[in-house]
C-alpha cells in the first residue's frame, strides 16, 4: 500500500511538471517518513556529506574544461589534423567525423558537448562533400555518444561517486571499448561511402594542419597521459587541462577573451547547478535505501529468479536499454547503479565492468526515442527533422548493440588493462 502511494505521488508530481530535484526530495522525504526514522534533517545532512568529497571536484572541472574547448578553436584544429590524414580514404570525411568525435571525447567527457563541437563543423562539411543528409546526421549524432564511453567521461565519474568504484579504473576500462566502438563505426562509414570521390594525399596540408593543431593535439596527451601514468588524479588532470585550454585559447588561438571566460564560468555553474543537487539528493536517497537493505533485497530477488550469469547480463542489458529510452543517463546511473551493483556482484560481475556495461547501454539511450537526448540536440543544432535523424542513427545503433553484447559477455575486453 505504501509503495502504491509512493508511485501515485511520483505520477502526480510528473503531471504537475516538477523538476527531478523536487521529485527526488519528495521521494526521499516519503521514504524517511514511511520506512525510515522520520528525521527529514538527515536528507540535507546526507546531501551535504555527498557534496563534501574530493572526488566530486572532477565534475565541475571537466564541465568547465569542456565548455572552454567548445567555445574555442581546439575542436576545429583537431578536426583539421584528422581530416588531412583521412581525406585519401574512400568516405574519408565520414571517418574524420567519427575519429574527431573519438579524439574530442578523449578531452571532453560529455556526449552533447562532443556532438555540438564536432557536429557543428562536420555536418555542413559532409553535406557539402555529397554525403547523404541521413548518413551525415547519423554519423555526427552517433559519433557524439563516444563522448561518454571514451574517458574522461562524466557518467563514469558519477558512477564512481555513487558506487564508490575507482574512477581511474573505470577510465582505464573504457579505453578498449571506446577504441572498439570507434573502429566499428569508422569501418561502417568507410564501407557505406566507398564510392564517394577521394582527395589525394597532400603533404603540405598535413604539415600545415599539424603546425596549427599541435597545441590542441597535446590536450588528450596531457589529460589521459597524466591520468594513466598515475601522475595526476582525474580531478587534478581536469584542473591541468582546464588551465592548459584557457592558456592556449587566450594566448595562442586567441579565440576566447577574458570577458567570455566569465560568461563560460557562469554558464558552467548553471550546468553544474543542474547536476549537483541531483547527485546530492540521489546519494542521500541511496544511503537511505542501503540502510533499509533495498539493494540487497533486489540482489536476492534477482538471484532467485535468474539462475545464471549470462541470463542476468542479457536481462540487465534489456533493462538498461529500456531505461535509456525513457530516462537521461545521469538520473539512470544515480538511481540504478547502487541498486544493481549488489546483484551484479552476486553474479561475479566486477563493479568496474558493470560501470562500462551501464555507460554503453545508456550511451545508446542518447539515440533512442522518446528521450534520445542527442537526437534532440542535433534537431536544434542542425534544424533537421526528428524522423530523418532517427533514421540516420538506426544503423549506428545496430552496430553499437553488437559491440555492447560483445563487451558485456567478454569482461576481459574492458578489464584487460585494469588487471
Amino acid at each position, binding site marked *: 500500500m505504501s509503495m502504491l502511494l509512493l508511485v501515485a505521488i511520483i505520477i502526480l508530481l510528473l*503531471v504537475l511538471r*516538477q523538476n527531478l530535484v523536487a521529485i527526488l526530495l519528495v521521494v526521499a522525504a516519503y521514504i524517511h517518513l514511511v520506512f525510515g526514522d522520520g528525521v*527529514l534533517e538527515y536528507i*540535507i545532512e546526507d546531501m551535504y556529506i555527498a557534496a563534501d568529497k*574530493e572526488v566530486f*571536484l572532477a565534475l565541475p572541472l571537466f564541465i568547465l574544461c569542456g565548455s572552454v574547448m567548445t567555445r574555442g578553436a581546439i575542436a576545429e584544429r583537431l578536426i583539421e589534423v584528422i581530416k588531412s590524414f583521412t581525406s585519401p580514404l574512400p568516405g574519408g570525411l565520414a571517418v574524420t567525423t567519427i575519429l574527431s568525435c573519438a579524439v574530442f571525447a578523449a578531452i571532453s567527457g560529455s556526449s552533447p558537448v562532443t556532438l555540438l563541437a564536432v557536429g557543428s563543423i562536420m555536418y555542413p562539411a559532409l553535406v557539402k562533400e555529397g554525403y547523404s543528409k541521413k548518413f551525415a546526421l547519423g554519423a555526427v549524432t552517433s559519433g557524439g555518444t563516444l563522448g561518454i564511453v571514451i574517458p574522461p567521461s562524466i557518467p563514469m565519474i558519477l558512477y564512481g561517486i555513487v558506487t564508490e568504484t575507482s574512477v581511474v579504473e573505470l577510465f582505464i576500462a573504457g579505453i578498449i571499448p571506446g577504441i572498439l566502438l570507434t573502429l566499428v563505426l569508422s569501418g561502417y562509414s568507410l564501407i557505406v561511402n566507398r564510392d564517394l570521390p577521394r582527395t589525394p594525399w597532400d603533404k603540405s596540408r598535413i604539415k600545415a594542419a599539424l603546425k596549427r593543431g599541435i597545441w590542441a593535439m597535446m590536450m588528450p596527451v596531457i589529460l589521459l597521459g597524466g591520468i594513466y601514468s598515475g601522475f595526476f588524479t582525474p580531478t587534478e588532470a581536469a584542473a591541468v587541462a582546464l588551465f592548459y585550454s584557457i592558456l592556449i585559447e587566450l594566448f595562442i588561438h586567441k579565440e576566447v577573451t577574458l570577458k567570455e571566460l566569465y560568461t563560460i564560468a557562469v554558464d558552467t555553474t*548553471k550546468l553544474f547547478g543542474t547536476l549537483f543537487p541531483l547527485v546530492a539528493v540521489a546519494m542521500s536517497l541511496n544511503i537511505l535505501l542501503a540502510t533499509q537493505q533495498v539493494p540487497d533485497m533486489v540482489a536476492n530477488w534477482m538471484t532467485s529468479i535468474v539462475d545464471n550469469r549470462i541470463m542476468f547480463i542479457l536481462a540487465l542489458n534489456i533493462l538498461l536499454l529500456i531505461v535509456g529510452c525513457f530516462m537521461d543517463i545521469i538520473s539512470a546511473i544515480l538511481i540504478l547503479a547502487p541498486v544493481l551493483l549488489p546483484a551484479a556482484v552476486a553474479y561475479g560481475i566486477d563493479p568496474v565492468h558493470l560501470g562500462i556495461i551501464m555507460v554503453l547501454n545508456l550511451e545508446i539511450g542518447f539515440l533512442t526515442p522518446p528521450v534520445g537526448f542527442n537526437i534532440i540536440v542535433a534537431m536544434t543544432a542542425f534544424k533537421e527533422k526528428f524522423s530523418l535523424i532517427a533514421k540516420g542513427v538506426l544503423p549506428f545503433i545496430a552496430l553499437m548493440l553488437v559491440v555492447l553484447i560483445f563487451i558485456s559477455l567478454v569482461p576481459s575486453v574492458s578489464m584487460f588493462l585494469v588487471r
Partner: protein
Amino acid sequence: MNGAGVFLKRLYQIEAFVAAFAYALLAIAVFSDVVLREILSTAVLGTQRFAVYTSIIAGFLGVCLAAAGGMHMRPRVADNWLPTAWNPGINRASNLITSFIFTVAGYYAVLFWHTGFEMGDTAPVLDWPLWPIQIIVPYALFSTALRYLLFVIFPALSPESKEEK
C-alpha cells in the same frame, strides 16, 4: 521590467559573480596543488579541502542560477496528459509546488546548519568553523524557493514564459 524583475536580475548577477569566483578559486586551488607538488615538491596543507568547499558554494549557487534559467532537468513524460489549454495554470501551480518543496527543504537546511553551529563543527585539516560555509545550503534552497514563488506571482518572469515568447 517591474520591481520583482529588477530584484531577480540583481540577485542573479550577485549569485553568478560569487559562483564564478568560487569556481575560479576551485580551479586555482586544485591546479596550484599539482604545480606545488610536481614542480616545487611542496604542498599547502588543506588545498583539496579548500577546493571542496568552493565546489559546495559554486554547486549550491548553481542550483539558484539553474532555476533562474529554467535549466533544472524535468521529466516531460506526463506533459500531454492534461489539456494544452490548462498550461498557464499548470505552470503556475507547478512553480508554487516547487517553491513549497524548496521552502520545506530550506527549513530543514536551517536545522542542519544550526546543529553544526551549535556543535562547533570545524573543517578537517583546515580547522575552520564550518557554519559560514554550510550557510550556503539554506540560502540556496530559500533563494530557489523565492524565485519560484516570484514566478507564480509574476508569470512573465518565469523561464517558461520567456521561452514561449
